């Protein structure tokens, strides 16, 4: 690979790696306790309870 391409490749991974791991850590720490029913209409949630 050309020197410029190798530099761009490494720079891209130096940016993407922390982004990937921050999202992963956030996703694992924020796993919901129970299925999220917020998108269901309120009437359905009341009926089910």
């Amino acid at each position, binding site marked *: 690979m050309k020197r410029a391409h190798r530099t761009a490749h490494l720079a891209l991974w130096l940016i*993407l*790696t922390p982004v990937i791991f921050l999202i992963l850590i956030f*996703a694992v720490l*924020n796993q919901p306790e129970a299925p999220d029913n*917020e998108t269901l209409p309120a009437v359905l949630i009341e009926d089910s309870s």
Partner: protein
Amino acid sequence: MSHDYKAVQWTPFKKRFDLWLLAGIALYLTVFITIGGLAQPPGESIHPVQAIIRATGTLAFLLLTFVLCIGPLARLSHRFKPFLYNRRHIGVITFLIALVHSGLVIMWYHGFSDLNPLVSIFVSNPRYDSLSGFPFEVLGFVALLIMFLMAATSHDFWNANLGPGVWKTLHMGVYVAYTALVSHVALGAIQFNKSPVYVGLLAASAVTVAGLHLLTGIASRRTGGAANADGWLEVAPVSTMVDSRAKIVRPLKGEAIAVFRDGQQISAVSNVCRHQGGPLGEGKIVDGCITCPWHGFQYRMEDGQSPAPYTEKIATYATRIVDGVVFVNAEPNPPGTPQRPSQIGVDA
């Protein structure tokens, strides 16, 4: 090799590779769907469409992980070179599997909406201001769009028309697609399925892909030091140079140099292939020609020119052997310039 935009040739090896790949894909889908059905808790069942959605989704993610590991692995070991030759085929098949996954998701989860299903993906979950509730399907759509661009421009026609530099830059978009895909799985499947298997697979994929790319990226930036006053760079002792293979030298300025040994001869050429910038020094000499490990482009050792009828030319470099140590002159000759090889045992 290229000639008038001729594509990389379909060889018997490539055909056999594709057949094995398709057989592996069929086996994975069958096993995943069968085990997924059997593993359901008593009284619960999974619809076949949902099973296929999960099977194709996991398969596309695993294949993309593998595709992204091929490049760095091939730099670390020659054993992975056969996968390098077939990487584009695996990439296009990965896109097609992801397309099946997306198509089924749109039909199954958005097909009954009053809205256009494609619009529904973007508006059915409006929580764009929340990371935990983010509409993860949009991230999958972004990844699919980038993979489509990669697959659509994977043919050598586009490489020849756009030029290797633009083509390579465009195809680095696959790293952004991978990041979007990891986010798609992390904010989607991981939130609904708390199985440690999914979390473990996702983390293993991210560590492997990012780790390999950073490792090889940092290693490839190591230079061979400054040339001496006459412009000569030390390569290696002759005794350590393997026949038909090369040592790569990286000057402080300019492109890397591939120094090959062919029997008793030592020659040096630019390390950058004219086709897609592949690392020639990681290839080997086949039929007397330096052969690129990526797609088999060939160059003669003595003048850096592709054998007829091909017309590609790369820079050559002067070499010399002093006290059993190979040196290369850091100043390149114009592409295609004949350069006498150094003779082991004669020039030393």
